[in-house]
């Protein structure tokens, strides 16, 4: 192996790793706030990426309709929950969030979508759509069972993944899609060529890590979100709106997922089911980070990306096997370092 190949592989690994880091961060975020292990994170990635790719062709993606439909369900659930104290203010607020918002997004998408729409508008629209889906997903699937065990939440999460992935097939078809690059700028250092795209990936990842760290470490809202995860009842007793915490977490996660998708869809062709695998690799990083630490997750993600790049060069057949078995030594170390702690379940 010469140094050039090694540098190329490393560069490739770091670009992939940065994406995994973003997803890993989102997973840690959601878990830390809601205790949900967010398997459908991968669907946020594909929905973001493929909505963007469809918008770039001038068409309206089906996801805009999905957001609308989920909004309707969320509104119905809100009304059902509040059926004993149906106050106008409450209904109006729910109406604004669950009906008006997705309707506006849908209208905006229809109004703006076209073959000549600027890239920035398409990105904004995709982000809006996926953000709304993330928000409603929490309301519909997780809010009613937010108090249950991690396990029940995990199984629900798997259910969401199945449903969303199936919908992805309906909206985007079985063919893969690619989106236009964000910028055509490029930079050459020695043998390596950095595209504007990959620089954007690095920049955004670093920005998100710092932003999340600042948000959770130093703001009242961030601390409130963490408090919700530790003890929902306690958080509610001191006046934290736990539902809001969950919604914010899902909103952030879906936006992060969609951004990751938009960042990679110009580099590789994405299929409706690609997100699952990408999300799972973010997962491995998150697990290595113990589902709590942002910097550790980011470092782990870079390692996962690099291992993937090197194994695809040396043993391309076993790339996935190697990446997914990477988790086993980590789990062994964890089980040796921290033997099971007593948990009260049910």
């Amino acid at each position, binding site marked *: 192996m010469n140094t050039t190949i090694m540098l190329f592989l490393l560069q490739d690994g770091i670009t992939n790793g940065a994406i995994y880091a973003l997803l890993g961060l989102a997973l840690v975020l959601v878990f830390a706030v809601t205790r949900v*292990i967010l398997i459908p994170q991968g669907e946020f990635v594909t929905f973001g990426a493929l909505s963007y790719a469809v918008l770039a062709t001038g068409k309206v993606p089906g996801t805009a309709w999905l957001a609308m439909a989920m909004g309707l369900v969320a509104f119905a659930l809100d009304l059902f929950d509040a059926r004993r104290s149906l106050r106008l203010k409450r209904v109006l607020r729910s109406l604004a969030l669950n009906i008006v918002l997705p309707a506006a997004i849908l209208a905006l998408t229809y109004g703006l979508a076209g073959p000549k729409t600027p890239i920035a508008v398409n990105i904004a629209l995709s982000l809006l759509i996926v953000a709304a889906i993330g928000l409603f997903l929490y309301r*519909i*699937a997780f809010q*009613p*069972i937010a108090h*249950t065990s*991690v*396990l*029940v939440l*995990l*199984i*629900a999460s*798997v*259910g*969401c*993944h*199945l*449903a*969303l*992935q*199936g*919908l992805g*097939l*309906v909206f985007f078809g079985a063919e893969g899609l690619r989106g236009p690059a964000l910028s055509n700028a490029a930079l050459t250092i020695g043998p390596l060529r950095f595209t504007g795209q990959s620089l954007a990936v690095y920049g955004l990842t670093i920005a998100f890590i710092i932003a999340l760290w600042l948000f959770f470490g130093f703001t009242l809202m961030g601390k409130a979100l963490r408090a919700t995860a530790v003890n929902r009842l306690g958080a509610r007793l001191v006046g934290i709106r736990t539902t809001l915490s969950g919604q914010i977490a899902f909103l952030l996660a879906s936006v992060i997922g969609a951004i990751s998708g938009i960042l990679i869809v110009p580099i590789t062709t994405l299929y409706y089911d690609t997100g*699952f*695998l990408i999300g*799972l690799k973010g*997962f*491995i990083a998150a*697990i290595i980070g113990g*589902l709590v630490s942002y910097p550790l997750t980011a470092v782990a993600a870079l390692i996962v990306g690099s291992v993937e790049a090197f194994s695809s060069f040396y043993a391309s*057949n*076993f790339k*996935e*096997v190697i*990446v*997914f*078995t990477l*988790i*086993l030594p980590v*789990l*062994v170390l*964890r*089980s040796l370092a921290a*033997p*099971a*702690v*007593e*948990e*009260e*379940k*049910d």
Partner: protein
Amino acid sequence: MHQRLPVLIFALVMAAIPFIPGVPPFWIVLLNNIGLAALVAMGLVLLTGVGGLTSFGQAAFCGFGAYTTAVLTTAYGFSPWLTLPLSLLVSGIAAVLLGIVTVRLSGHYLPLGTIAWGIGLFYLFSKLEFLGRNDGISGIPPLSIGNFKMLDPGTIYFAIWIGVLISALLTMNLLDSRTGRAIRALRRGHIAGEAFGVQTPRAKLLVFVYAAVLAGLSGWLYAHFQRAANPTPFGAHAGIEYLFIAVVGGAGYVWGAVLGAGIVVVLKEILQSYLPYIFGGQSQLETIVFGILLVVLLQLAPTGVWPWLMAHLPIKPGRKVPDTSLPLAKRERAPATAAALLQIEKARKQFGGVIAVNDVSFDVQAREIVALIGPNGAGKSTTFNLITGVLTTTGGTISVLGHKVDNAPPQEVVKLGVARTFQHVKLVPDMTVLENVAIGAHLRGSSGAVASMFRLDRADEAKLLAEAARQIERVGLGDQIDQLAGSLSLGQQRIVEIARALCVDPLLLLLDEPAAGLRHMEKQRLAALLRQLRDGGMSVLLVEHDMGFVMDLADRIVVLDFGTKIAEGTPAAIKTNPDVIKAYLGATA
């Protein structure tokens, strides 16, 4: 026999179905698929529903079973019957290797780990040359008896359903035994089980391997049913679907697995054949409906369909009353010696900068009731945890009858005859009082998992249950013996814990706030019981806040405050001790 009767009827019905004229062959194929899925789901019932360990990776174990027989029969010409034990063995060994790595993990790491290795193994199956890569292996010979080859679905049907029925019976036998109780206690955490000698990691590994072997059996049958094996049915989505089946049927119930498999397989078939008509020719639409149904089901009926069905049945299964005359060997008691039963020397426990127990020394002699009192946070429960091995000491020594136990695991401490109750009741709420108490006698039985599965443990088991029933009678809960522990009042649950501790046949009984939640009369009855135990040769060390109760009962009192022993003496001396009064009332009165 009345528990077996429904199983027998079910077996006869299943045996008759293929002979009913006019049954479409397609139904038989569906029933075969149901049987195959039920086998895997049954393993998950034990693993997830009963043992509390969630696995998304069971499909991979089916893969081990299927590929083992596929390779051996096609490439090496083995007979399919010869590969059956080998398939089960390979699945089992894979489970042992993965289990050693994963089952020690607590909480959500296990399901995550199973997703990861489930996918890893799927890719391994689809990349290995000798497994035929993505195409898999075809031309697997059918099962045959003599010259009779099980070629069509209607004949292998019998092999599949005999497998299901035998597995169900073995699983039910296993759950209704000494080992079964240890498994059923896993879900509620490991501390209570370990305090009575259950080797929790071993029990977890056991269910993990058991579930994998059932999956391996399903894979072996699948390979000879389809006569081919390829990676697709052993991937991540199949693993998720098996868990779905277990949850739909009722994750805690053996027959829930069969019911769940029936519901899911039939539903999937209907969705696959009708959804394309409704929505146009798209494939995979059933996954959307599946996912949504899973989420809805968790919100509406998290325990599954089987328990719901059972609750609506007019007939309740009866239960055998244990024969309390069966004796259980008693612990050998050393003749009264001068040595203390429990000797604590400068025991110390630090949590970071907090000293929870600060060089505490005291002892408990034979036939003595000692009370450990002190304000909240004085370190009483921590001292209990140090004695029973739940926590390790930072310094000092603790010995029971001269054996040092300060860093011994709980399972070793209980062997020396130290039994305990917990401040926060640790019973299994969905087990009966009798079953909960019988966990206390865990170390006094010896039958293992295999013996239980084949009902070779009955003599041993009857003695354990007899002992449990005697102790329940002794503490005065004879009327509640068949009720679920979770349905009793908190005070009664504490008494159940005492009965469980008595099942150890202990020399020393550690009671953590036994009188909390009891009414006056109940407290008096408890005090009488404890005196009777002492006069029978047992020692008692108790933590209690009810001063009237303590002062009446205890022979000696040790007072802790902020982790330090501030006084020790007879009740009369303690009542007037100025340090004690200061600790409790904040001033020298």
